[in-house]
C-alpha cells in the first residue's frame, strides 16, 4: 500500500504528487493538490461533476487512478480562466443564469469547452447529447444549453477576428 510518486502536468504546470495506487485522480486533485473545483457527486461516473480533461479528452476524474496521470496532461476548471479573464463559457454561464447551486457547474464548463473545441457550431441536440454525462438538478438544463449556444456564437466571432478569412 506504499505511495507512488507521480509526475504530471496540470493546467500547464508541472506537478508532482505521491498517492497510493488505488486513489482516484479526483481524490488526488481535491485532497492532495487543493484543486477543489472538481466535485464528487457519485464516484461512479454517473454525474460528471468531477469532469476534467486528460490529454485533451473529457473524463470523470473519479474513474481515473491518480497513478495513471504519470506523464499526461490534465486540465481542470481552475485553469479555465486565463490571466484573470473568464472564458466566454464562464461569462455566459453567469450571464444566462446557467447555474443555481453551482455544484455541477465546473463539470458542465469542462464538458462544454471540449464540445466547442471539437464542434464550434453544434446544434441544440448535439449540445444536449454532449452534456448528457453531466447531471444538473436545479436548472432543467434550459439556461445551460442557452449559455453554451451563446458562447459558441461568441467564440466563432472571436475566432473569425483572430484568423481573418483567407482569400480563395
Amino acid at each position, binding site marked *: 500500500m506504499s505511495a507512488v510518486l507521480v509526475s504530471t502536468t496540470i493546467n500547464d504546470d508541472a506537478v508532482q504528487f505521491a498517492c497510493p495506487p488505488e486513489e482516484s485522480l479526483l481524490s488526488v486533485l481535491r485532497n492532495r493538490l487543493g*484543486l477543489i473545483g472538481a466535485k464528487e457527486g*457519485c464516484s461512479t461516473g*454517473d454525474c460528471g461533476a468531477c469532469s476534467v480533461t486528460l490529454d485533451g479528452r473529457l473524463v470523470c476524474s473519479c474513474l481515473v487512478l491518480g497513478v495513471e496521470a504519470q506523464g499526461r496532461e490534465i486540465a481542470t476548471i481552475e485553469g479555465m480562466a486565463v490571466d484573470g479573464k473568464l472564458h466566454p463559457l464562464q461569462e455566459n454561464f453567469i450571464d444566462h443564469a446557467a447555474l*443555481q447551486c453551482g455544484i455541477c457547474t465546473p463539470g458542465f464548463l469542462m464538458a462544454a469547452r471540449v464540445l466547442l473545441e471539437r464542434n464550434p457550431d453544434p446544434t441544440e441536440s448535439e449540445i*444536449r447529447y454532449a452534456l448528457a454525462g453531466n447531471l444538473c438538478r436545479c436548472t*432543467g438544463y434550459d439556461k445551460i444549453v442557452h449559455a453554451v449556444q451563446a458562447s459558441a456564437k461568441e467564440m466563432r466571432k472571436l475566432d473569425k477576428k483572430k484568423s481573418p478569412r483567407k482569400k480563395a
Partner: protein
Amino acid sequence: MGNDPSYTNQKFKVIGSRVQRPDGVDKVTGRARYGADYNAPGQLVGLFLRSPHAHARILKISTSRAEKLSGVKAIITSADLPDLTNGDNAARDILENCMARGRALYDGHAVAAVAAVDEQTAKKALKLIKVTYEVLPHVTDVDEAMKPEAPVIHEDMYTAGIEPRPTKPSNLYNVAEFGHGDVEAGFAEADLIVEKSYKTEQTHQGYIEPHACVASVNPDGTGELWVTTQGHFTYRSVCASLLGMDIAKLKVTSSEIGGGFGGKTHVWIEPITLALSRKANRPVKAVMSREEVFRASGPTSSTSIDIKIGAKKDGTVTAAFAALRYQGGAFRGAIPGMPWAMIGAMTSFACYNLANVKSVGYDVVVNRPKVAAYRAPSAPMIAFAVESTMDMVAKELGMDPVDFRIRNAAREGTRACYGPVYGPIGIGATLEAVKNHPHMRARLKKNQGRGMACGFWFNFGGQTCTDLNIATDGSVTLTVGTIDVGGSRASLSLIAAEELGIPYEQVKAHIADTGSLGHNDTTEGSRGTFSSGMAAIFAARQAIGVLRERAAIMWNIPVEDVAWEAGSAKAIGSKHRKLKPLSLAEIAAASPTTGGPIAGHNESVPDNAGVSFASHICDVEVDPETGGTRVIRYTVVQDAGKAIHPTYVEGQMQGGAAQGIGWALNEEYIYGEDGRLQNPGFLDYRIPVCSDLPFIDTQILEIPNPNHPYGVRGVGETSIVPPLAAIGNAISNAVGVRMNHVPMSPPRILKALEQLDAT
C-alpha cells in the same frame, strides 16, 4: 414606511432587473466552497456502518476489534448517545434516525460510526465491527403497511386523529380530515361522478452534492460545524439539543449548498459527526457516498390515493373527495403536527372553488428511510391524482379541460379546501394565460399528445433576522441568515439597493454563521426571498432612519427636516434651500465623527407569504411499441407575485418542472422482496439528463401579494406540482391510456397499451 408589510404598488428602479449573482465568479472558477470542500487541521475521517436489513433487532454490536485497529480514534453507537429528548417525539425520531437504537428500521439505517486517521483505516474498522441482527418481518409498501396482518413497526404507535383512540398499535399514526360543505349531498347533486385510484412511487430530491460536514467539539463544550444545509440555525439547535450542548456554544457555518430541494432541511450525519469529534477530541469530516444519500437520506413519500369528483352537465363540480395514504418512512412526519399525508390533504383541491369538499390524509410508517421534505412536499402526488381525474371528468362532460378548470377555479373570496379564505390569487389568471398561449395551438403529430394541469403551494414566512451595515465608502453589507439555494443573495441585494436608492453593485450580501445573527428559519417553503427580503426592507429602512439623523447632525438641522430620496438625504423646507443633498456615501464617510457605524437591523416573523398557483402545458410523444415517452415541449405559467429577479424566477420554474418530469416518467425507489433498495445510484435512479428534456418555456404572471411591500410571493416550489398530471394527461391524449401509477415508465405504459388493445 416603517415595518408595514402592506403592498404599496411603488415604481421600482432596480427590482426586476436581471443582474449578475454575487457568487457567480466563484462558482464558474471552482472556488466556491461546498460541504466537502473544507478541511480542519488534524481532521479525522468519519464513516458510517449501515444496516443491510429492512427491519431487524440489533442483538449486539461488538466494536472491540475495530477499536484496537491502529488509527481508529472513536467509535459511536447508540450507547454513546443518551436520549435527551424529554418526551419530544419529533426529536426522538431524529435521534433514532441518525443512529439506530436497538432496532434497524430500514435498509441503510446507521448502526455505528467510526472516526479514523484516514479513509482506508475507517473502512477497515467498519468491517471489523460485528453486528448481530435478528431479522424481523418488514413492510415497505404503504397499502400493505395498512393491512391488519402487516408487521407493526412501532409497538407504541396508536393512531392519532380518530375517536375513540384505537386499542391496538398499528402502522397508521395519524388521520387528518379537511373540507367543508356536505360531500354526500354534493355527489347526489352530480350528473356524473368519476372515481379513480392512483399510486405514486418514492422519489429522491437528487441533489448532486452529497451531505457533508466537518465537526469540531472542544473539551470545554464549545463546538463548530461546517455543513451543507438549507438551515444552519435549525441544524444548530437540533444538534445541540440531541448532544446536550448549549445552543450558543455551537457555531454552525453553512457552506455553499449543492442543491437541497428540502433534503437538506433535516439533520442526518451531522449530530453523529459532532459526537465522533467530541469522543475523539479531534475535528471529524464526514461525507456521504451517493449510495448512502439514496439509502439513508431524503426521499419523499410513496403514496396511494383515491379520488372521487362529481359534476353537473354545465361543468360545475358539485363535490370532491380524496383519500390520501402517504408513507413517511419508519418515522412520523418531519414537521411536528404536520405529517405528510396531512399536508397533501390540505393541498388536494386548493386550486378550486368547491361548495362540498373533503380530503382525508392517512399517515403511515413503513420500513423505508425517514421521509424528508421535497419541493412542495406532498403536493405533486395528490395533484397527479386530482388533476388526472379532473381531465377524466372534463372528457366525460365533453368540455375542454382548460375551460372546465376555469369554470371551477378558486378566486378571491373562495374558501380553500384547507380552511382559509383566499385573498387575491393567480389560479384563474394562469389558466387564462394557458388558454391563450400559442403552445395550445401548436400542431401535434401521430403518437403525440398535449396535456395540462394546475398546481398549488402554500409558501411560508417564518422567523427571520437580518443586518445591514454601511461601510465608510458607502458600500453596503447585507447579512442574512437564510441559505441561498438559487440566487437569493442577488435578489436580496436588489431589495436593499432599491430601498436605499443605490446601485445593486454597491450591495454585497453574505450568509452569516450562527454566531453572527439571531435565529433564522430554514430556507424551505419558498420563504428565502419573501422573508429575508421583507427583513432586508425593514433593516434598510432602519438604516435610512440613521442616515437621516446623521445628515441632520452634519447640517445641524432637525431630523424631521431631512428626507431620503433616491439614495440621498435632502433637507426639506425653504429655509434649507441652500443645503445640497448628501449622498449615502457622503454621510457614510462622515459617520466616524457623527456617531459611529451606520446600520439597520430587523428581526421579524413575516406572515402570509402569499399562496402560489401554476398551470403547465406539456406535449409528449409516446412510442406505442416500447412505451418510451419523451417530453417534446413544455410551458410553465406561474404567479410569482412580484419577480424580484425574473431570470432566477424562471430558473425556479424550469428546475421544478424538470424534477416533476423526472418523477412522472422514470424516477422511483425500487425495493426488493428483501426490503433492500435496489437502485441507490444515479445510473438506475434515473433523473433526467440534458438530452431527455426540451427547452422549458416560462411565463411569469405578477399578481401582487397584498402582504408584502413589493407584492412578493414564494416561487420556488409550485412548479414541481403540476408536471406529473400534465404528463399523464398528455399521454392519455397521445395514445389513449389513462396512467394511474407514477412513474409512467415504459413497462407500465406498454402494459396499459396492451390492456387497451385487449379490450
